């Protein structure tokens, strides 16, 4: 059962999409699970043949539980699970002193906890998850109503945000960006595009953030097991509000490598699936940074809380007309406030400032995004 959120402790196996004996390749959907973020499609991370189905539909199991075994293309069998969450406990128990103390306090037996640190060691987060999870083999969850779903989502958000504020030393930066060129370019570009291919202003922001991450790769990472784990690709999380309440922030994969038209199609598809179901497990586990915009709600500045294990969140407010000096002349310009909330364990304000500067500069050349 993959970990699909900072404080996800368990999930319910809803259905298998592949059966024993089926051949699978990396990226295939093998199962559907229900989590606090809705129905999620679980992808496989290796290619091979499904050798064993270990969890029946309807069962609720803790994160880290092995759902199935796949015989890899090659000699050795391998377990299907999130790479960061080893499915079985290491032969020799490895646990940090802080995690051991917490386990004692919470009455958790470390031998029952799966470690998620790169070397398989048990972290404080693993102990917290173990303390909160239901017993393995608990009966399947009964069908839940919308109110129950909302309550569980709020609890999940509450746990993740409280943990973030407790553990992550945030620093906050803000800058005002002149949007005149970007908005003028966008209006002209959309005149040329058929209605089905038009771009939203938000896609310019997403692309600018993705390209800025290339320039400041320190912010393209996660903090896991007490250390920085750099991401090789740029997967930008997008905060999507859900109609019944709550939010989810799935990843736009390889956002830096997609042209604006393709990125817009991916963005539309992602928002639709976030609201109707069908997000993939990798879309929830891959982001290193989240972009949120509350401009449509009339907000001028957004100072977000980092969603662990990500290392930053970028906020955009609404576009407003402001007096602006251009070559010594005061003119009226459309501007937006961009903010960065980032994990001070991973980066410093100097790098954060360079990142926001890069976003600003990239938005001054929208045709090159």
């Amino acid at each position, binding site marked *: 059962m993959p970990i699909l959120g900072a404080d996800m402790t368990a999930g319910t196996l809803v259905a298998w999409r592949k059966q024993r004996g089926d051949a699978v390749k990396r990226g295939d959907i093998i199962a559907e699970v229900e989590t606090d973020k809705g129905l999620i499609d679980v992808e496989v991370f290796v290619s091979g043949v499904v050798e064993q189905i270990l969890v029946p539909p309807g069962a609720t199991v803790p994160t880290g539980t092995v759902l199935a075994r796949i015989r890899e293309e090659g000699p050795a069998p391998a377990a299907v699970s999130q790479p960061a969450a080893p499915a079985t406990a290491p032969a020799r128990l490895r646990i940090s002193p802080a995690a051991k103390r917490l386990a004692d306090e919470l009455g958790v037996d470390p031998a029952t906890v799966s470690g998620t640190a790169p070397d398989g060691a048990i972290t404080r987060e693993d102990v917290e998850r173990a303390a909160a999870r239901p017993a393995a083999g608990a009966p399947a969850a009964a069908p839940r109503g919308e109110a129950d779903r909302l309550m569980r989502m709020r609890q999940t958000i509450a746990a993740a945000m409280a943990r973030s504020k407790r553990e992550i030393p945030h620093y906050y930066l803000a800058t005002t960006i002149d949007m005149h060129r970007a908005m003028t370019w966008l209006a002209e570009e959309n*005149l040329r595009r058929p*209605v*089905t291919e038009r771009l*939203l202003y*938000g896609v310019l922001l997403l692309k600018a953030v993705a390209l800025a991450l290339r320039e400041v790769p320190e912010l393209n990472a996660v903090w896991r097991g007490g250390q920085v784990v750099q991401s090789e690709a740029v997967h930008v999380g997008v905060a999507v509000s859900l*109609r019944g309440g709550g939010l989810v922030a799935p990843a736009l994969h390889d956002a830096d490598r997609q042209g604006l038209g393709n990125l817009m199609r991916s963005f*539309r598809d992602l928002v639709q699936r976030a609201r109707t179901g069908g997000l993939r497990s990798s879309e929830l586990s891959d982001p290193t940074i989240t972009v949120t915009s509350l401009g449509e709600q009339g907000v001028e500045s957004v100072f977000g809380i980092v969603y662990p294990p990500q290392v930053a969140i970028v906020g955009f407010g609404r576009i407003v007309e402001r007096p602006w000096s251009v070559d010594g002349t005061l003119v009226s310009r459309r501007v937006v406030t961009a903010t960065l909330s980032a994990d001070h364990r991973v980066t410093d304000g100097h790098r954060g400032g360079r990142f926001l500067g890069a976003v600003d500069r990239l938005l001054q050349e929208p045709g090159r995004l």
Partner: protein
Amino acid sequence: MTKDEIRATALRVLGDIAPEADLASLKRDVDLREQRDLDSMDILNFVVGLHAAFGVEIPEADYPRFATLDGGVEYLTARLAAGVRR
């Protein structure tokens, strides 16, 4: 196509975008975004759906006409009457 038929089709398109919205209680002259918590992505999908349903090209500059259901229906009625199709 009558105004009522246009309205019915527009409501169907809206229902496809926001299936949980109670369309029966929708106020025709009140901002759709405020009534149903729609965002710019929803409005874009609404316009795309209307384009598919009516074959009318809707420039981005005219999106504000779709702020309310009545405004959108008036706009489409006029465009269809003028024979403006893509």
